[in-house]
């Protein structure tokens, strides 16, 4: 009686295959992003959710006076940032005219006016630029507060409202808005990453300077290699600058850290201008670092 035995075997094989496929799919979904790979990819979303996102994006586009009509809506996963966004592309007669990205909860994340249209009116000064920036941010539905950093760029103005928690900056988070020279809208983005629990006890500055000096000496093999210049508290997303076993993308959760900055001492030949080690504010462990070359 072969047939019945075969018929019992197939469901078992299919079940095993399904389990294996499911496992490998899961493994793929959870594998960390690696340098060289595409960092964004489309992910499944309900049509109704995408429809709502598109309607919201169209409202933002109208309020900012951007040209074109929505022609594509998709949910994308940004594997570098560990975030998911609904991305809506607008087109006019010439081609793509704007990109709007929303968080799945409807909060605006990014608006970019494409095409390098440039300024059409007379250039504005710093105060007028800030006034325009506030108006554009409000129109686009981005909430800003506090004193921004205003930077004159080659093409206009960059206005940045840094996110702060209890007065401590969350580096990389906040609202960044670009204006053309005449104050018209170019682009805006809002970043807000998860924060880890604040340590119950925070190391004092003298202690972290000692720890940083030891770490620098350990790395360089001599104690006078680096001159420590400053130490300050900030929320930082861990990176792999000091540890290649960590993922290629920065962590998705920011930790309270001491940023200890130093420069090569004069008796050391070095190509770098400034180095930083990030120490966990609670236990002093290295969570990352940075360098200016």
């Amino acid at each position, binding site marked *: 009686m072969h047939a019945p035995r075969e018929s019992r075997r197939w469901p078992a094989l299919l079940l095993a295959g399904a389990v294996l496929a499911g496992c490998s799919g899961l493994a793929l979904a959870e594998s960390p992003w690696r*340098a*060289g*790979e*595409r*960092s*964004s990819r489309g992910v499944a979303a309900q049509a109704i959710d995408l429809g709502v996102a598109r309607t919201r994006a169209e409202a933002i586009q109208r309020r900012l006076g951007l040209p074109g009509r929505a*022609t*594509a809506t*998709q949910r994308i996963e940004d594997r*570098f940032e560990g975030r998911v966004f609904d991305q809506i*592309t607008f*087109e006019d007669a*010439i*081609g*793509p005219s704007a990109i709007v990205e929303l968080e799945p909860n409807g909060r605006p994340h*990014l608006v*970019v006016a*494409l*095409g*390098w*249209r*440039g300024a059409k009116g007379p250039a504005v000064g710093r105060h007028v630029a800030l006034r325009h920036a506030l108006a554009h941010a409000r129109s686009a539905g981005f909430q800003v507060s506090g004193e921004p*950093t205003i*930077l004159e*760029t*080659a*093409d206009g103005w960059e206005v*940045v409202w840094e996110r702060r928690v209890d007065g401590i900056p969350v*580096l*990389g988070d906040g609202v*960044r808005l*670009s204006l053309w020279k005449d104050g018209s809208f170019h*682009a*805006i*983005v809002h970043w807000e990453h998860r924060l880890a629990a604040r340590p119950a006890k925070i190391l004092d500055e003298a202690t972290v300077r000692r720890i940083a000096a030891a770490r*620098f000496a350990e*790395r*360089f*093999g001599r104690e006078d290699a680096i001159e420590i210049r400053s130490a300050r508290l900030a929320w930082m997303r861990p*990176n*792999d*600058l*000091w*540890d*290649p076993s960590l993922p290629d993308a*920065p962590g998705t959760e920011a930790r309270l850290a001491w940023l200890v900055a130093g420069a*090569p001492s004069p008796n050391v*030949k*070095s*190509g*770098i*201008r*400034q*180095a*930083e080690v990030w120490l966990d504010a609670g236990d002093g462990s290295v969570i990352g*670092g*940075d*360098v*200016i*070359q």
Partner: protein
Amino acid sequence: MGASRWQRFLGPPLALAILGLAVGAGPVAAAGEQATIDVNQTAFNPPCDDDANFIAPKMLDAAVAAYKRLGYGATGFTGAAFTRAHVLARTVDDWGYYVHSHGDLFRHPDGRRYTGFREDAAKCVGAVVYSKDIKAKRNGRQSNLVFISTCHSADPNTTMPDAFAIEKIKAGQLAWNGPEFYVGYVGLQWDSDEWVFEQRFWDALAAGMGVGAAFDYARKGSFRSATFQADWWGSYVWSGRAGLIGGCPHCV
């Protein structure tokens, strides 16, 4: 984001480029044009530096993969393989070029200052590769995509774009300055911010955005520094793909 949408966007200027070719002469480049990716790692790791830098090798991997996706025959070099002599020997055949190193406006032996960057050469402080040296070797040869991932490479007074025959002009949506694009950083920038910018730029290009749109998109990354700045010159609507017409199959 669908690539065809972006490729239609690139159509009119590319048609103009082809017309220009018909009257302008010059050899038509074949697919797989050479791109060189040079990354200085020695200077930024022990024993040369106090802190090991694991961002630089990622930049190398990301740039090689990105240039390959754009149709270049891309090869990466680092350590003893990335020397001044190597740069100047390969640049003659480069359509694409990427470098990550220490960069500045260096004083040349001729007494003038030029934008440049340091070779790796497995030395803590390598020799400077000046824009003047590259310009002399290339002798006006056209470039495609040039990304100088160093401090000061896109300062207003940078001399590097000219070395690759890229005018410091921004050709916008309805303009066309040939299939060329130069990207660099303004002033001093942290490596982590450069890394954020670069991976966003490469990914946007892979999504089929033109180089200008990819630049605009990359500019809105999660940068630690409020004063992060990059700049560009070239043709905003170009695809970034290798070759004299940009390698866009749906444009003509």
